[in-house]
C-alpha cells in the first residue's frame, strides 16, 4: 500500500535527521589522533661513544617525536666492532621492526644481512656509510669519495702543489675512510709534483698515534697532511702543536669536535671538512616513516660537507652547524 510505504519512508527520514543532529553536537575527534599502530624504527649506529653519533641520535629522536614513531637505538661499544654490530643487526632483524636505519661498520660483511632483510621485507636505510654489497632502500650521507678528492685539492693548494704528503687514516674508519682515501689517492694523480710520503693508520689511541706522527714530522720532510677521520685529525694537529718545527706543515682534516675547533682556531690545522649528523639522523627517521607508510623515498640524499677554517668558523651559519644547542 502506497500510504504505508510513504509512512515508512518518512520514519526513516526522521531517524536520519535525528542522528545527524546528535552527531553534529558530539565533539569531533581531533585529527591528531595517534595511530594505534606506531611505526617501529630500529637505528643501528657505528658506536655510541662518539659525539658525531650522539648528535645523529639527537636528530633521529627529534624526528621520531614529531612523527609518531617508536625508535630504538643499538650500537656496538666501538666503531671497529664489525662482528658485534653484525650480531646486533641480525637479532634486531628477528624482532621485525618496520624499518632499520643502519650506519654500518663495514661493507662486505653486511651483504648477507641485506639479503635477509630483503627477504623479510624490512627496508634498510643506510646512513652515514654507503653500502654497496647489497641493496638498500636509500642512502643518506656524504659522497665521501668526492670529499676525499676535495681534501686533496685543498691540501695541494696549501702545499703550493708540491711537496710531500702524509695521509693519516683510522683503523676503524670503516666505509667512509676507505672511500675518502681512494678519493685522495685518485686526485693525487693530478698533482705530479706532490709525492705521497707515507700513510699512517691510527687506532683509537690518540696519544700513541700522535707520537707516531710527531716522529714522522721530525724525521721526514712533510709539507701537508690529509687526515681522514676525527681521531687522525686530532692526532695530527696535536702532534704539530707539540712539535716546534721551522717549516710549516699544513693539515686538512675531517669531522669536528670542540677540541678540533680549538686547534683550528689556534692555527694548528687549516681546514676541516664537517658533516651534519643531526640533520642526517633527522632525515633518516623522516624517510623511514615515509617508507613505512608506503610512500616513495629518494634513492640517495646527499649531505654536503662544509669546509670550515679559522675565518669562517664563527660565521653565524657555521656557528649553528658546529656548535649544537645543548638543551
Amino acid at each position, binding site marked *: 500500500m502506497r500510504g504505508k510505504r510513504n509512512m515508512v519512508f518518512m520514519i526513516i*527520514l526522521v531517524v536520519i535527521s535525528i542522528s545527524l543532529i546528535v552527531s553534529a553536537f558530539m565533539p569531533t575527534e581531533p585529527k*591528531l589522533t595517534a595511530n594505534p599502530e606506531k611505526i617501529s624504527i630500529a637505528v643501528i649506529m657505528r658506536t655510541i661513544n662518539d659525539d658525531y653519533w650522539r648528535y645523529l641520535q639527537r636528530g633521529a629522536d627529534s624526528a621520531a617525536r614529531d612523527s609518531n614513531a617508536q625508535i630504538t637505538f643499538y650500537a656496538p661499544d666501538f666503531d671497529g666492532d664489525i662482528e658485534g654490530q653484525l650480531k646486533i643487526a641480525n637479532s634486531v632483524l628477528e624482532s621485525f621492526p618496520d624499518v632499520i636505519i643502519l650506519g654500518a661498520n663495514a661493507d662486505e660483511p653486511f651483504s648477507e644481512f641485506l639479503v635477509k632483510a630483503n627477504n623479510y621485507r624490512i627496508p634498510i636505510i643506510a646512513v652515514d656509510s654507503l653500502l654497496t654489497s647489497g641493496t638498500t632502500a636509500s642512502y643518506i650521507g656524504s659522497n665521501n669519495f668526492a670529499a676525499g678528492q676535495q681534501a686533496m685539492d685543498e691540501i695541494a693548494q696549501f702545499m703550493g702543489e708540491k711537496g710531500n704528503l702524509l695521509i693519516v687514516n683510522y683503523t676503524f674508519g670503516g666505509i667512509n675512510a676507505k672511500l675518502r682515501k681512494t678519493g685522495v689517492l685518485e686526485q693525487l694523480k693530478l698533482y705530479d709534483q706532490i709525492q705521497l710520503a707515507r700513510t699512517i693508520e691510527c687506532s683509537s689511541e690518540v696519544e700513541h698515534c700522535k707520537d707516531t706522527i710527531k716522529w714522522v714530522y721530525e724525521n721526514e720532510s712533510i709539507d701537508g697532511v690529509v687526515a681522514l677521520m676525527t681521531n687522525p685529525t686530532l692526532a695530527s694537529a696535536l702532534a704539530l702543536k707539540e712539535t716546534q718545527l721551522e717549516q710549516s706543515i699544513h693539515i686538512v682534516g675531517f669531522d669536528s669536535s670542540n677540541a678540533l675547533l680549538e686547534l683550528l682556531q689556534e692555527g694548528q690545522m687549516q681546514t676541516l671538512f664537517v658533516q651534519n649528523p643531526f640533520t642526517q639522523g633527522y632525515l633518516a627517521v623522516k624517510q623511514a616513516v615515509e617508507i613505512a607508510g608506503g610512500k616513495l623515498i629518494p634513492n640517495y640524499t646527499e649531505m654536503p660537507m662544509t669546509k670550515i677554517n679559522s675565518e669562517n668558523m*664563527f660565521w653565524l651559519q657555521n656557528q649553528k652547524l658546529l656548535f649544537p644547542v645543548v*638543551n
Partner: protein
Amino acid sequence: MNRPSIQFILTVTFSLFSLIIIVIVGVLLTTQFLNSSRENVSRNAQQIINQVSYNLEDYIKTTTNLYHMLHHTIEHSDSITQNDELWKLESMLSTRSDIVSMTLVNTQGKPYMALPNVKLKETVKLNEEAWFKSAIERDGYLSISIPHVQNLYAEQFEWVVSLSKTVTFLDNGRQVEGVLLLDVNFNRIQELSERVSLGKNGYVYIIEESAGNMVFHPELELVYAGLKDENVELALRQTYGSYIDESGTEPVLISIQSISNVGWKVVGISHLSELNLSSDQFLFAFLKILVALTILLFVIAHVISSQISKPIRKLEVTMRGIERGEFNVQASGGGPLEIKNLADRYNNMLSTIRNLMERIVNEQESKRKYELDALQAQINPHFLYNTLNTVVRMISKQRNDDAITMITALSRLFRISLSRGQSIVTVAEEVEHVKNYLIIQQMRFKNKFEFEIEVEEDILQYSSLKLILQPIVENALEHGIEPSVDSGMIKISGYKTEKDMIVLSISDNGLGMSEEQVEQINKQIYSSKKGSGVGLKNVNERIKLYFGIQYGLSIQSEIEEGTTVSMMFPAQQIDRGEEQQNERKT
C-alpha cells in the same frame, strides 16, 4: 502542463521557506559565534604572550640591573684586581645560574679580569668580537647581542647572549678605558618560555627584530639545521596582535608582543584545530544540523499537507461517481472543517439533482398522460358518430356540398389531431384544427352560432401545443352557446405581445359564469358536469408543463355576457427535429 498538487505546493513552499530562514539565522549565528570565539582565543593567547613578554622584560631588566651593578662596582673600585673586590663581584654573579662569565677588557682587547677565573684562550682577538665593537660604537650605552657561540675559553663553545658596555676603571692607580662583558645563557629564557600553555602543541619563540635571528625556540636545533620553518616574515611585520597564519601545513594562531628596549619579539603559536575552532569542523557540524532540520521540516510539511489533501482526494473520488451515473453515493465528511462543509454542500447538491431528475421524470409522465387524455378525448366516439350521422342525413337530403365540406373538415381535423404523434405544431396548424372543428360543429348546430378567427399573420409560424384551442371551444359551445337561447358568436383571436408572448383567446357571448364559478375554475378545481373532464384543466396543465408555470389559461366571464378564455405562452420558433427526437426518447 501538469498542475502541482496541494501536497506538493505546501511541502515545497514550507520546506523552502523554513530552509531559507534556517540558513539565514544559522549563518548569522555561526559567524557571530566564530568571530567572538576567535576573538576570545586571540585575546587569551595574546594575554599569555603578554605575560611571557612581561616576564622576559623583567628578566632582561634584572639582568641589565645586575650588569649595571657590576659596572658600577668596577667603576668605583680602587683596584679591580684586589681580592675582596673580586669576591664582591663573584658573589653577585653566583646568585644567578644563567651567568656564564664576566670579562673585563681594555680598548685594545687585552683581558684584565674574568670570572669565573679561568684562563682565556690566547688565539682570540677580543677587540674583533661583535660585542666589543658594538660597545665601542655605542659608547656609554648597553648593547645586548643576538645569541652566538662564546669564544673566550679554551674548548668551551657555549651559546650565550652578551651584554657589553664601555667602562672606565682603576688598575693600580691608572685609569683604564675598556669594555665590560657579561655572558648569559638560555637557561632562564628557556624556563620562562617553556611554562606556557597554548594548547597541547602550542609554544612560544623569541625572535630578534633587526635581522630576524631566532633568539630562542623550543626546537632551536631543528630551526638552526633548517629543518623547521616559522613564518618569521609575519612576525617581523607586526609589532603586536594576533593573526591567523595558513601558510604552513596547519592553520595556526600567531600572537605577537614586542619587548621594548631589546628589539626582541615574543611570538606564540597555537594550533587552531586543537582549540576546535577550525571553521571547517564547525561548518561541517552546522551543515549537518541544517540538513537534519530541513529533512524534519520536509517530513512535517508532508504530513500536514497530506492531512489536507487526502480528504480532498477522497471527495474527488466520490464525485467521480456522478460520471458513472451514481447519484446516490454520499461523500464522507472527514478531515478539516472546510472539507466537511464542501462534502455537505455536495451531498445537498446531489439530493437536489435527484429531486430535479425525479420531477423531470414525473413531468414527462404527466405530459404524456395529458396528451394521451386529450387525444383520447379527441377520438370521442360520440363526436364521430354524430358527425357521420349528420353527413348521412346530408347525403340523404342530397346536400352533397355540405357533406363534402363536413367530411373534408373531419379528415383535416383528425389529420392535425394526430400530426404523426407530435406534441408541438405550428399556431397555423392549431388554428386550422379548431377552424375545422368549428365548421363541423356549426353545421351540426344548424348555424346556431357564428365564428370569427382573427389571428395575426406573423404568429402563425410560432410553435403551439396541439389540441389547446379545440377543447376550449368545445367547452364554450357546451357550456356557453348551447344552453343559450340567442345565437352565439365565438371569436378566436391571436396576437403577439411586445414581450414576445403569444396570446390566444376564445371568446363567446354565451351564458357566462358567476364570480364563484370563475374562482373555482381559476383554482383549477374543475369538475365537469359532463364530458371526460379534459377541457380547461388539461390544457392549462399541458401549457404549464411545456412552457413553464408562469404560463397557462386565464378566464374572464360575466353572467349573460359571455366568457373569454385566454392562454399565454412564449413565442418560440418551431423545431420539429428536436421534437421528433424527444418523442422517440419518452
